[in-house]
């Protein structure tokens, strides 16, 4: 506690809006965006570039009998038609997924979900490519699909993955965490046990920019340049080398401006591989840009967990244990993008922010005839599901005990002196000071006043709900001894060069998709080395220009790469000290650093600035013995632990009793992400996630009919919040630095996506208390709320 506390005193006293150096500075990347001069993948135009379009399966499960491409090939503007059989000849018909499964690039034997890639056309323009798709004749033998995840393991269920040798069922994995025996014992002895079935429906990240790529293979020097919508350019380069068999030093992945990612742009999709194959085949640059339906139908979905939650407590509200059984729908291929040691992502943090005696989770994952994916949509590797489960269960317990949900949480939150805290499922929470965060949210919301207002309204028959959620996240994957993706450790590199005139270039392995890295990372380096952020160029998104690292997702940029940026700057500063000692003719130990300059201890008039040191580093004259010229450094930062941000959210809803329409009237979010670098950017990240929460809680779902047709294949059907569905957000913060992170920062990019759905659902259920509703599943559309009001809340799947 003391280390954490001291740091807070030292850094933040009376200065919380400018916590780190340049604080709330405006973004360095904005001048190009507000002029329409960003460069997204679809903006890339190369001479002679061809366009690729993909033919997709119209049905969810069918054997391919034949594919006739002759009519398409005969079109004058068509340069090539590629099928799975052609790829198979080159060993490219299947590719590895991020979870050590395989996925078809183009189907050779069967199609396994509606929208699966079957063939592709390469043509002179995008319209001609689309036209030719209509001329490809595919004959299918329709098979019975597996759509209801609950029946996927029935003995007579059709086997989806008969491509896997010896596979006789649709089982993907079983996974468990915690202590089953100890948990059973606590449950058996508990005063109160509440059980609730909870569904987190399948949703989709739907970034506004869909996925796409421009592949440009040079047959003379064998180099592939690949512009792609990727959150992880270095990981993609290595995977492309593995998939396409190209040497890795001949692959350059360029991830230019990215129009939102949210996890959707982590995996390698078949379209990328098709673009590469098409460029090799035609000798021309090839662009593939999916349309919105393709994005919703085929790329990484999120969630799709069917959970049974159980919570055990004493009669006076001491939470003792949580137990859960999960059925996970992984779609037709296990494409989960998570550290391989964590097949269920970080769902193991379902114990939440509470001090429990025991916890246990058992999970079964299955294949169904739906698109692959599972880890996406700002989920922090499944922490969305974990937090939703525990925060709904705590509210169910409060309902059962007739306790106020805030009172119940305050009684059970971890205390500050319990950190670092090891959960019953083995996660080591680095730091936390939970109660002040919840109290701050209550103060901002005016919690007591809201409850009074609610009582008055209830008496008049009006439906007002107040929902509370408290979350702890685990972000910043991760320590390489515990975490890798396909064998690639999750450490991140960083390089810093200070040029002779004292201007600097910092090169990152992570990849912004809107998070503002060009600003935030300049601020981190500026703070450490004293060069103004305006004089620091942040380079990212090009594997030939940047050091290796695993990219941006799971809120890992600041926890991992942010640590690297601070440490590489300190390494440069250490070298600058040696050079300064020569310039001032004193021992290095006799120098003191004051932001931007070294001076002789006890004599501040004898000083050299970092800019003067930089010029000397490259200039004439001798340097101290053993010191090389130049002022630059590189580092690979392997984080010792994840960081554990937390937050308290309070949502107020009004429900129209005549239409059952939910209106989010207010939303108060108090986040604690440790040291705050740029509060403006942090608040922006929080606002984004809160909007995700409104979408998921009230509007969004990828539904399927019994034949496996996706019923949300466009933005007409997959409903995303507009400005009319969300309130003006009310944000606050507390600061509990991470004790192990070089600047005490924690991730924040996904906190609000994790924390807001339970707050909103808790508010809706609270509003429906007069109807005896203890739980209703998302999305809480008017029809589903209407059913709940009439005592008939149905699961969405």
């Amino acid at each position, binding site marked *: 506690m003391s280390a954490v506390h001291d740091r807070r005193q030292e850094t933040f006293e009376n200065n919380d809006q400018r916590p780190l150096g340049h604080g709330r500075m405006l973004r360095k990347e904005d001048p190009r965006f507000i002029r329409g001069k960003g460069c997204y993948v*679809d903006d890339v135009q190369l001479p002679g570039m061809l366009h690729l379009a993909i033919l997709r399966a119209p049905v969810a499960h069918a054997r391919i009998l034949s594919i006739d491409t002759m009519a398409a090939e005969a079109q004058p503007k068509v340069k090539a038609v590629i099928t799975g059989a052609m790829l198979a000849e080159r060993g490219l018909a299947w590719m590895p997924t991020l979870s050590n499964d395989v996925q078809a690039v183009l189907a050779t034997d069967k199609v396994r979900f509606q929208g699966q890639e079957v063939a592709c056309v390469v043509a002179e323009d995008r319209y001609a490519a689309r036209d030719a798709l209509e001329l490809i004749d595919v004959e299918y033998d329709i098979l019975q699909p597996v759509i209801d995840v609950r029946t996927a393991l029935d003995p007579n269920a059709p086997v989806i993955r008969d491509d896997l040798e010896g596979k006789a069922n649709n089982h993907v994995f079983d996974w468990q965490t915690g202590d089953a025996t100890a948990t059973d014992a606590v449950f058996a002895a508990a005063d109160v046990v509440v059980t609730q079935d909870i569904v987190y429906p399948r949703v989709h990240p739907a970034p506004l*920019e869909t996925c796409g790529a421009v592949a440009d293979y040079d047959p003379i020097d064998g180099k592939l340049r690949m512009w792609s919508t990727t959150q992880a350019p270095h990981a993609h380069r290595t995977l492309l080398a593995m998939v396409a068999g190209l040497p890795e030093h001949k692959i350059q992945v360029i991830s230019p401006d990215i129009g939102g990612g949210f996890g959707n742009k982590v995996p390698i999709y078949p379209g990328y591989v098709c673009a590469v194959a098409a460029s090799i085949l035609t000798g021309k640059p090839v662009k593939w840009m999916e349309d919105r339906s393709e994005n919703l139908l085929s790329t990484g979905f999120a969630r799709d967990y069917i959970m049974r939650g159980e919570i055990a407590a004493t009669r006076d509200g001491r939470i003792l244990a949580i137990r859960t059984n999960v059925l996970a729908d992984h779609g037709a291929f296990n494409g989960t993008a998570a550290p391989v040691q964590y097949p269920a992502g970080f769902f193991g943090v379902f114990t939440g922010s509470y001090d429990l005696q025991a916890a246990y989770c058992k999970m079964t994952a299955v294949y169904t005839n739906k698109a692959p994916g599972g880890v996406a949509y700002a989920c922090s590797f499944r922490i969305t599901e974990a937090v939703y489960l525990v925060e709904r269960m705590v509210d169910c317990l409060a309902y059962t005990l007739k306790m106020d949900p805030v009172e119940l949480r305050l009684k059970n939150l971890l205390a500050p002196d319990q950190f670092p805290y090891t959960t019953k499922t083995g996660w080591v929470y680095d730091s936390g000071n939970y109660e002040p965060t919840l109290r701050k949210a209550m103060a901002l919301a005016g919690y007591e006043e809201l409850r009074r207002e609610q009582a008055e309204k209830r008496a008049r028959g009006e439906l007002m709900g107040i929902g509370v959620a408290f979350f702890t996240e685990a972000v910043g994957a991760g320590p390489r001894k515990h975490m890798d993706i396909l064998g690639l450790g999750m450490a991140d590199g960083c390089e810093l060069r200070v040029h002779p005139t004292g201007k600097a270039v910092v090169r990152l392995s992570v990849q912004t998709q809107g998070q503002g890295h060009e600003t935030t990372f300049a601020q981190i380096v500026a703070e450490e080395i004293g060069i103004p952020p305006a004089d620091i160029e942040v380079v990212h998104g090009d594997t030939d220009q940047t050091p290796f690292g695993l990219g941006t997702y799971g809120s890992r940029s600041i926890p991992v790469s942010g640590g690297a940026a601070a440490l590489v700057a300190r390494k440069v500063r250490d070298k600058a000290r040696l050079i300064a000692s020569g310039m001032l003719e004193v021992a290095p130990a006799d120098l003191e650093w004051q932001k931007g300059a070294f001076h002789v201890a006890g004599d501040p008039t004898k000083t050299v600035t970092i800019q003067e040191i930089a010029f000397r580093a490259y200039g004439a004259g001798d340097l101290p013995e053993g010191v090389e010229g130049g002022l630059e450094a590189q580092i690979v930062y392997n984080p010792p632990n994840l960081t554990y941000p937390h937050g308290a959210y309070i949502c107020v809803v009004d429900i129209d009793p005549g239409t059952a329409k939910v209106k989010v009237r207010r939303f108060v979010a108090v986040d604690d992400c440790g040291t705050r670098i740029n509060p403006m950017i942090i608040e922006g990240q929080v606002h984004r996630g809160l909007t995700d929460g409104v979408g998921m809680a009230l509007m969004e779902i990828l539904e399927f009919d019994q034949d496996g047709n996706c019923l949300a294949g466009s*933005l007409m059907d997959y409903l995303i919040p507009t400005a009319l569905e969300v309130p003006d957000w009310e944000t606050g913060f507390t600061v509990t630095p991470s004790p192990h992170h070089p600047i005490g920062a924690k991730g924040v990019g996904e906190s609000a996506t994790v924390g807001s759905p339970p707050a909103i659902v808790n508010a809706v259920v609270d509003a429906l208390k007069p109807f005896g509703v203890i739980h209703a599943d998302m999305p809480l559309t008017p029809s589903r709320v209407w059913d709940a009001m009439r005592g008939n809340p149905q699961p969405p799947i």
Partner: protein
Amino acid sequence: MQVTMTVNGEEVTREIEGRLLLVHFLRDHLGLTGTHWGCDTSNCGTCVVWLDREPVKSCTVLAAMAGGHEVRTVEDLEQDGELDPVQRGFMECHGLQCGFCTPGMMMTARALLDRDPDPSEATIREAISGQICRCTGYATIVRSIRWAAVHEKDLAS
């Protein structure tokens, strides 16, 4: 077929297919890539441009239909090196993150302020409700447009 229209104050003539969408005409034929494409169904609004001073979704307008008309895109907001107050507002109030919806949002905002120089928050939300932003949660976009309204008023007085 041949189409002639005025884009950002300059007359352009091109040979096009009759089915060509205005968004693709602007992006692929004129290289004006500030106008984006994000859905197939006129829901997202990343493609909003002006057609005779009215915001339209250029994914739902044929290039041929713009023949003889005036089109204005995000590239024309900055005049003689002076940013439009809407552009400045978006920078000042963090009204953008990934930047993909931003051009469309700004074109709608400019049109709104031209007809209502002092819009309320509710009016602004209504005006941009045909457009989606996945990053900002809209609050900062609303503030950006209010910033522009307030600063335009200051400039005028």
